[in-house]
């Protein structure tokens, strides 16, 4: 998700090409081409410019609705409804061919990954592994991060693993129950934390961990645009 207010212009984008199965967008205002995954202009008058980053989460609708009951949902455009995908679109796409492949870390081209590019590094996590482990404590670059699976067992968020006033890296545990939305507990403060990364009890109640953007992507695409990526649990 990107901002589209750049260089004093509000850009309007069209899908206008493809770069190894990651699409290119063209903006109407300058004719520049932008890479979808990086938000960077790769050709045209704005070449080298970067779209402003906008944080987003990929969630199950039920989870999002419970968090944001006043939120609004994009409606189908009647003219195109016939072409919309089924809800298991990403799973069905796992059978589609790819034009590039990176046979590294024992991963297949269409393995679904959770990619994090932050703190001067990039790291990928096999989606199925994160779902199994439910809570992953790891580092991206030198920075500790948490990956947390939501109560629906499918949605994942990541956070910077830092709590003010707590020395070192706080240790989190998966909460046994799900009362009041508590998913985690931390050893340092004894607080309970919900899926939004906010303490809902304890002495730092109300404090929220810093969210870290996670991109759900196929391995071949993530690796192609993040050649220096490391992979969680793999050498």
């Amino acid at each position: 998700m990107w901002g589209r207010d750049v260089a004093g212009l509000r850009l309007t984008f069209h899908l206008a090409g493809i770069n190894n199965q990651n699409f290119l967008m063209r903006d109407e205002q300058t004719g520049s081409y932008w890479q979808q995954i990086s938000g960077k202009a790769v050709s045209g008058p704005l070449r080298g410019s970067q779209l402003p980053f906008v944080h987003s989460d990929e969630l199950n609708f039920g989870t999002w609705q419970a968090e944001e009951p006043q939120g609004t949902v994009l409606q189908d455009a009647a003219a195109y409804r016939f072409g919309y995908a089924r809800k298991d679109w990403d799973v069905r796409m796992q059978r589609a061919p790819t034009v590039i492949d990176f046979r590294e870390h024992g991963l297949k081209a269409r393995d679904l990954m959770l990619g994090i590019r932050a703190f001067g590094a990039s790291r990928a996590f096999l989606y199925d592994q994160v779902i199994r482990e439910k809570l992953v404590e790891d580092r991206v670059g030198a920075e500790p991060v948490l990956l947390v699976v939501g109560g629906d067992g499918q949605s994942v968020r990541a956070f910077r693993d830092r709590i003010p006033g707590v020395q070192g890296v706080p240790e989190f545990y998966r909460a046994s129950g799900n009362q009041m939305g508590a998913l985690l507990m931390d050893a340092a403060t004894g607080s309970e934390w919900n899926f939004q990364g906010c303490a809902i009890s304890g002495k730092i109640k109300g404090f929220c961990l810093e969210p870290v953007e996670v991109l759900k992507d196929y391995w071949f695409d993530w690796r192609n645009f993040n050649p220096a990526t490391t992979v969680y649990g793999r050498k």
Partner: protein
Amino acid sequence: MTNEAQRTQRISVAVLLTCLALSLICVVYPFYVIRPFRAQGARELPIALVVLRFRTAATLISGAAALAALVLYWRTQPGKWRRVFVTAGAAFVCVLAALARVNIYELMFHPDDRPSFAAASQTKLDKDEKVIAIKNGAVARAYPIRNISYHHVINDVLDKVGIVATY
């Protein structure tokens, strides 16, 4: 036929062939490089994008030059079939100039430029449907993936901030 007329014909044909070759490259090369289910090389893609950027102007100039060459040729060449052949060539350059204004991807994929939204409570989505969720201040929005994976690009405004949702 005078030497001057022969020279004019040769120049006209040379200009026409050059315009034809240039226009063909402008239309075919980006299409060849940037096509689905083909790996795009690190060198060829930037070249194809530069061609895309300048091809509208290049093919329009080619079209104008081809028409000028055609007029010169008609003035000096009385042969019917040669005239027809050269006219067809100039017409083809003009067709290529028109084709250069078309991006096949933009015909195939339709961005949703006027997205409409409804309250979550009034939306009939299964609980396990995937959405891309964003929040800016008190404004929260969800983009169902089965919808956005068709449009791929949603040009939207959230609390006065222009955003583009992609998938």
